[in-house]
């Protein structure tokens, strides 16, 4: 059993990589009111690869994900201690502009949540918001590029003026991904992006994640271990608010060091 002290957790696991450490979390504790949701989590996430967070429901993996773009700020009772650095910058520093931070970190949610606007406006919303693009042609170009990258362009290029909510579930989720990448983030956080989708749509999204990792750092929370094995290079296993083990995905699934991890990934548990 891990007692949660710093010595037991190796921030980067045994994993050695040529990639740079992008997100560095140290001793993160999260409380919802009196209830502690994360215990002393220290985890590093490397640039331009996919890190998946796995674990049984309520283990704190979504909570951890939402710490990374400060979405937990929205919840009044939530308080966070510890240190999260992105590119060496403490994101909980009071001088940090949350809005600017979130423009660098895109997020895709469990349930597709397109705005009740047209497909075009959904994608154009972010760039417009940040005033990055004001020219009309340039905006068209940006929307097209984002939709192409999200693998949605061919399917809906004739339906740009239809409401985003009229698309199918899988298309909506890819629209949300297009919306996230339209603001050119460094990092994309995905909170169980395929849990509301059928296998075919899931396959498409997974393919997309694989392509996106050449340009973006992706952190994905997933309930499906197969998905974690398929799409991620590194995997972190959470249990009851503790980070149990983190390492190379292959190692985690083939030869986990921790018994609990082994029990979970082999399906005996959780």
């Amino acid at each position, binding site marked *: 059993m891990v007692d949660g002290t710093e010595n037991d957790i190796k921030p980067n696991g045994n994993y050695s990589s040529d990639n740079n450490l992008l997100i560095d979390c140290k001793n993160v504790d999260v409380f919802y009111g009196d209830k502690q949701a994360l215990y002393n989590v220290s985890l590093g996430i490397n640039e331009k690869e996919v890190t998946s967070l796995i674990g049984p429901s309520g283990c704190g993996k979504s909570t951890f994900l939402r710490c990374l773009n400060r979405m937990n700020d*929205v919840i009044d009772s939530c308080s966070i201690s510890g240190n999260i650095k992105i590119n060496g910058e403490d994101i909980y520093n009071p001088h940090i502009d949350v809005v600017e931070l*979130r423009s660098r970190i*895109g997020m895709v949610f469990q*349930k597709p949540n397109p*705005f*009740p606007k047209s497909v075009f406006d959904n994608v154009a919303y972010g760039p417009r918001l940040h005033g990055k693009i004001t020219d009309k042609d340039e905006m068209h170009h940006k929307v097209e590029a984002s939709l192409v990258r999200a693998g949605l362009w061919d399917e809906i290029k004739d339906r740009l003026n239809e409401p985003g909510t009229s698309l199918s579930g899988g298309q909506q989720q890819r629209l949300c991904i297009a919306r996230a990448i339209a603001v050119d983030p460094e990092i994309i956080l995905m909170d169980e992006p395929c849990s509301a989708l059928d296998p075919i749509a899931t396959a498409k999204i997974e393919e997309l994640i694989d392509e996106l990792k050449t340009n973006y750092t992706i952190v994905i929370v997933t309930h499906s271990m197969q998905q974690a094995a398929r799409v991620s290079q590194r995997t972190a296993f959470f249990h009851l608010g503790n980070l149990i083990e983190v390492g190379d995905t292959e190692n985690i699934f083939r030869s986990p060091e921790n018994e609990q991890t082994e029990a979970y990934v082999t399906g005996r548990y959780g």
Partner: protein
Amino acid sequence: MSKNINSMMLKRQSAEKRFRFYGQASLAIALIMLVVIISSMTYRSIPAFTNYGLNLNINLSNENISQDNINYRRLVRDNISLLDSGCDDRKCRKEFLRLFSSGAAYELRDTIENDPSLIGKDFSKFILFSDDADLFYKFGIDNSLPESERRLNDREITWLNGFKELGLVEKRFSTNLFTNGDSREPEIAGVLGAVIGSLLTILITLIISFPIGVLSAIYLESFAPKNKLTDFIEVNINNLAAVPSIVFGLLGLALFINFFGMPRSAPLVGGCVLSLMTLPVIIIATRASLQSVPPSIREAALAVGASEMQVVFQHLLPAALPGILTGTIIGLARAFGESAPLLLIGMVAFVVDIPGSFTDPATALPVQVYLWADSPERAFVAKTSAATLVLIFLLIIINLAAVILRKKYQLKW
């Protein structure tokens, strides 16, 4: 076992059928009541939409007068006297004159002022009978009553029958009802003054309560810190929505009129008082519709990097707009039909002139209904119903606007 299940199913099905029947029955009862109210109102208001009168010859050809010094009252009186009354004493002539509306002089003045070329000509002018004569033609008169207890004596009845036999009597649509302000004379009293007064009042209410209500709701919902003070404010807003309207009238009297010295009987004050009443309704409706926007939309916008204010104005507000508008219009409709608080701030005054500004003395339509219902003249009974119909008609228009706005701004999820 399966028998058990079958009997259970039967029970459930019949329970469902019964429930459906109860629902239909209550709906039917509600509809019947509505139909009864509207149709009885309509039936009782029918006499108010017509007036009896006769075409009176006005002789202006042999008189050498200019427009400025015409005594219209005398002109009408003299020309009425030309009709054959068979009177030889003053009392009789006075009685004869009493059959005609005292408003005839004003109408004649308006006619001549509109067309000064009539001076120096003979022309005929439709003048109204007084309310008693009008009612005689509409309903007849109960001859079994002794003459002293009747509104018309035998001689007057003879005259009126005489007019009818001569074919002088004419029934016309009562435009007065829609173009005049209030009057002591039922045949010339109209609802226009009250309608304008009501509209001015409700405009003030809208201007004050809509922005304040929506903004406070947004603040409470999205920005206010969750602490004891906001809880206290919230409880009080909910309480205010349940406070009897007359209390707001007392507050308005003490605050706006006595303390701030605003004019009595003015739509400005009426609007202020009604906004006090409408504010909590709008705040509650706005908060409810903001709450009903799926939180996922808020998260989506925040995650793209929208600020809290951008989330509110670009996402929450457009999505909540149909609900906000419906709530506002329902609040306004309630204020539109309100009379009690207006009584206290003097909008119950007898106002003949049609109000032209927010500070002119005015009355409101529901108060007009109350005033007329309280009047002793029998002709006001029909007027009361007619004014109520106008009120209901305006409320239907307001509610229709709510439905249309709701449809127009409804977002598809």
